């Protein structure tokens, strides 16, 4: 699971008011190189919840992203590379996504988050 996807996942357990973002518990993180596309990154920058993204990247062991970011930073190659790396090249293979309100763990196995709810959570 890439951080791009994590940035779109939330806990939808019954009764939860704000299930975003899910906290990451990383057991196995894998890096896969992928070609960088500046246009794509610029478009994604507008859509990404930055705070959730930075926290998630740190949970995955990557500390190069700044706490806050604004569009002017996209002109810097270094920033662009780091953004690209964290967004698309870090994969959570094994671990869990934790609901911020209930603490319920959604397992991530072989890179895939299992967001299926139990009967009593619906």
């Amino acid at each position, binding site marked *: 699971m890439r951080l791009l996807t994590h940035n*779109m*996942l939330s806990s939808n357990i019954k009764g939860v008011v704000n299930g975003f973002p899910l906290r990451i518990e990383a057991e196995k993180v894998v890096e896969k190189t992928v*070609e960088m596309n500046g246009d794509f990154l610029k478009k994604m920058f507008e859509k990404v919840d930055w705070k959730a993204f930075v926290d998630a990247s740190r949970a995955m062991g990557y500390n190069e992203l700044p706490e806050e970011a604004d569009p002017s930073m996209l002109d810097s190659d270094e920033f662009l590379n780091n953004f690209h790396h964290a967004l698309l090249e870090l994969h959570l293979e094994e671990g869990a996504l934790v609901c911020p309100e209930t603490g319920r763990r959604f397992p991530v196995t072989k890179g895939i988050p*299992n967001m299926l709810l139990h009967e009593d959570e619906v």
Partner: protein
Amino acid sequence: MDSLSLLWTAAILAAGLYWFFCVLGPAEQKGKSATAISGGSISAEKVQDKYKQYWSFFLRPKEIETAEKVPDFVDTFYNLVTDIYEWGWGQSFHFSPSIPGKSHREATRIHEEMAADLIEARPGQRILDVGCGVGGPMRAIAAHSGANVVGITINEYQVQRARLHNKKARVESLCEVVCGNFLHMPFPDDSFDGAYSIEATCHAPKLDEVYAQVFRVLKPGALYVSYEWVTTDKFRGEEAGHVETIEGIERGDALPGLRSYADIAETARRVGFQVLKELDLALPPSHPWWTRLKMGRIGYWRNHLLISVLSALGIAPKGTLHVHHMLFQTADHLTRGGHTGIFSPMHMILCRKPIST
């Protein structure tokens, strides 16, 4: 016969058998092998039982007693059939209008790309595939549009198959799969730039529920296209033959109850969508989608023989033969549905979530 002629005869026989089973049989040359057919996430010993449970659940009349059980049975269905579908049909578990001069694969891809075009998917957008199966459409749509696609499917086995296929694809970086229930989507409100579902929402007991979820997770102004399985205006509930065909389709495809074509737009509007376009893609000038099902007696018996041998050898789980037979019978019902025009698997509806609600 002298030994040379014997050798030649044996070689030709072997080549013939290979061609008959291994070339004509599978849908894709480098795809699923018949020796790798499993019951999905169901362990081999349990396939027979699970099949019986599935069959008895759907034998009940149209009013499925407990709607809550439906997702479990849809899950079971896909555990049982995914491998056979991949082996015999390909990675896109849906129909497409046949196109003279083009292969099934080409026709499938064109049908999928049209969905991407209808929702105007573009690079930099995040698109949701509602009910993504093993990801055939996802990969084609990501490749065609350059958009990022997130797929959701309830079946854990399919999710792993999708991931495997994604890894081998050129568009791996654009595709991601999540295991979840599209009736309770694990996404925040207003998050996707577009969405599509290809012949998947038919598994929801109430179409309102899945449409409402899609509506919720789309950004205002975003487009959603769905290819729906429906009974058409030619369907007559009083005609026993019609009812038999439709019930056969429902039973053999894990459907809680086929919708009438008239229900689709009504449902979309009820949850808040603006309906932009609606068209049964199966109607002329499209060519038949059901001709692909005509595998013929020979094809069926060949596959039956192959699966029997593999089951006897313990390679394919016991029960696979029943599942294969069920799918063959279902193919009959589907063909009749298409031929008589009472059923369509591609009633297209294009909707927009209004900018201000």
